[in-house]
């Protein structure tokens, strides 16, 4: 399976520019970056992709065993970077993809120049001496809510999944399919996302990282962002004056500015702590 078609990889920007890979989080697809990615196209080679099971990825490549661990998704990221023969990339991961980037950089540090982690959480469930923000019961509520919206989603999703050629307008209009995912895959992705514990993976990473955190985020609270910052050697923390879990949609200008400043700073003073 060709990683580029499997993950619906889209490339824009400057062919010779430094590569910037954007990875969407749980619940959505590469459309998440619509207000962010264009700002980088004048100076960077911009790579967008869908995780398998989301957006317009190849659903036939979905392997329940491979994708029951975040390592499976991280391996996809490595394969995409390798398939494009890119120099070390800046990886921008939102939500669960922040940890996917952490795993990929821990496994293959030579492929990654910097990480930008937007709303990361190494563990969503509370644990002894650790507050992730959620209990196991609350996660079950999420699954119930997803189930309750199952019928509606299925209608939206079916033509896209099956690629019905007789109604191409459904597949081509990104807005109409945005965030629509096969319910069974979404359910498993929810479990993989919210039940994973990757706290022990943070110290394995040597790649410089920027942690971007919203002032108020019920999914990844500020203290979780601080935890990530503390346990990632050589990371910087930026708190956006924004609420919610998706600054890439709700505060794209702030996010773009934070990332650009970080990357500029990195170029001018590469040896910073």
């Amino acid at each position, binding site marked *: 399976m060709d990683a580029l078609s499997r993950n619906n990889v889209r490339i824009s920007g400057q062919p010779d520019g430094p590569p910037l890979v954007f990875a969407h989080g749980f619940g959505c697809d590469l459309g998440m970056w619509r207000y962010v990615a264009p700002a980088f196209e004048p100076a960077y080679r911009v790579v967008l992709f869908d995780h398998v099971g989301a957006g317009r990825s190849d659903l036939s490549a979905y392997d329940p065993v491979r994708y029951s661990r975040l390592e499976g998704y991280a391996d996809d990221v490595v394969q995409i970077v390798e398939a494009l023969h890119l120099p070390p990339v800046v990886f921008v991961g939102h939500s669960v993809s922040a940890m996917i980037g952490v795993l990929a950089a821990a496994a293959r540090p030579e492929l990654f120049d910097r990480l930008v982690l937007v709303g990361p959480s190494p563990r969503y469930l509370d644990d002894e001496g650790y507050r992730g923000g959620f209990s196991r019961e609350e996660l079950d509520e999420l699954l119930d809510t997803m189930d309750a919206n199952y019928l509606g989603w299925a209608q939206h999703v079916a033509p896209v999944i099956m690629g019905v050629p007789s109604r191409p307008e459904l597949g081509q209009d990104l807005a109409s399919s*945005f965030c629509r995912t096969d319910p069974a895959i979404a359910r498993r992705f929810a479990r993989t996302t919210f039940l994973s514990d990757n706290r022990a993976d943070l110290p394995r990473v040597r790649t410089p990282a920027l942690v971007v955190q919203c002032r108020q985020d019920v999914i990844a609270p500020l203290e979780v962002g601080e935890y990530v910052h503390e346990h990632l050697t050589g990371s910087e923390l930026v708190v956006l004056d924004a609420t919610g879990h998706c600054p890439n949609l709700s505060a794209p200008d702030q996010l773009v500015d934070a990332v650009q400043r970080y990357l500029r700073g990195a170029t001018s003073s590469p040896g910073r702590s």
Partner: protein
Amino acid sequence: MTEDWDRSPCGLLVLRTDGLVLAANRTFCRWTGREPADLAGRVRFSDLLTVGGRIYWETHVDPLLHVDREIEEVALELKLPDSRLPVLLTATAAAGEVVVRVALTPARERARYERELLAARAAAERAADQVKALQEVTAALSRTVGVPGVLDELRDAAVRLGAATASVWLRGPDERFVPHAGSDASAALRASVLPLLDRAAVQHSGRVTVPLRGRAALQGVLVVVPREDAGADPLDLEVLTAVGQQAGLALDRAQLYEQSASVAHELQRSLLTGEHPADDRFEVATEYRPGVDTLEVGGDWYDVFVAAEGVVAVVVGDVVGRGLGAASAMGQLRSAVRAVAGPGAGPAVLLSRLDRFVEHVEAASLATVAYAELDLDGGGVRYACAGQPPPVLVRAGGGVELLWGGRSAPLGAYLVAGARAEADVQLRPFDRLVLYTDGLVERRDRDLDEGFEALARAADEGRALPLQKCVLAVTEGLLRDVQTRDDVCVLLLSWSGGQFSRRIAPDLSELSAVRHELAAWLAARGVAGPTTEDLVLATSEALANAAEHGSGPDEQVELSVWFEQPPVGAVEVVVRVQDQGRWRVSDAGSERGRGLTIMRALADDVAVEAGNGTTVWLRRRTAGGAVALQAPEAR
């Protein structure tokens, strides 16, 4: 207007784009038991939802509102002081506006109805998945061969159904459960729980035990370690229970099958391991290879028996079909061959009689047989092949021939009796005859002629090996890279050439006759004319010496002539002349001394051995002679 807003049957809200409640109508306040002042500017809408709803809002609804600017009919639950209210949410974030307008309708009934619908749908989907999983496992189990095959498939199935690892424990003869090969013995079983098992159950360790119940008893237990990956699907105990039931029955079948197969193998083995008749004049070596990738016996056999005084019969055959039936038909046919062979019945007559036999024994019909009779004194071979490939003749003096004579159809295939063919061939000492069943040369990936060539080559290369090693080398050489095949029988027959023995009176009155007989005997065994002349002359000298000096008038001289095959080099003729006297040293230089000189000139090796009498040994290579022999050791 404000009145309409407040009295709307829907809960209405206006939110800032970051979700902060700017205004809520009275209907919404009544539902949530809050004052408008408690909400406006103080609460984010997602805070009013259950936690699951909040995550959903942040990861699904909010992104859609930012991109699509509207969303319809999202099912969420409002958190009330001591209950929950299912609602359907519709929201718009019109372009150019900085607010989100939200309308909520209560959906208690609808939510309940949809939950039932969802539950029914989930149950139907799960049932379909279960049936599919079971069908796959059942189909896979039915394709397996033997108990190990069932267990391998069972472990594979468990992994497909979500196990990290799976092990199988089988009930042993002492009623104890022991881990099957390849199973993780650390997954120790608590024996006390076993009799209670009637369905898949989660043990304290987190492992799942699945009973494998046969018709009569618990055959074993499948122990499944669930996968622990965050997104791993939970194990379906119902499916595992059903898989266990299927596997229990499959184990029943596999054991029955193995029992039947083992009876057949035992029968075949007992028929193939009898002693060969012992006689110095011939040697037989055999090799049987059971079919690969099958538990069933194939019905191939070989046999060696005395057909008549001085006649040994060798046979290989192949009965149609497999399994116990084939093994038993093979046994009957093998006995029939022995029964109908005998004095006066050559190969063609034997096959005709077998044709009649198989008319009554259906299972032996269309069996193929290669049969040969060797005259132990003369070396003549009569042979016939009913549907079997041609025997191979390996000449001791060099050369390999396929014996294409005496061919006819498999047994019972002749409608008219008496149409069986046979042929004959003359063996020379230590020539080898190879009989074999067709599995030795038949290969899917090459035509039969190539198979014959390969066999001829292998037999030629093995000519210097002792017979038993040669049959092994030929069999292994031809079957080396064959993955799946029928069973195979290979039989090698070697003739020693027999022995020429005479007792001669010291008056040498019979010498002339013996010389003629010996010359004829050697010529019949393919010894070349000049060699024969030399040997007869040398033998005459030895006899003359023995008669003149060795024995008293009543004592006879014994002459024996035979062939020997040294480990390397050509076949040798060995002549032994024994008398009861003792040669005197002073005889040297006399007539006797001259005789010895002649013998040494005519034979490759001459030895004189003194004991109770005197024995003279002469050795002469029959052909070639390129290989140096050890210097003669005269005494």
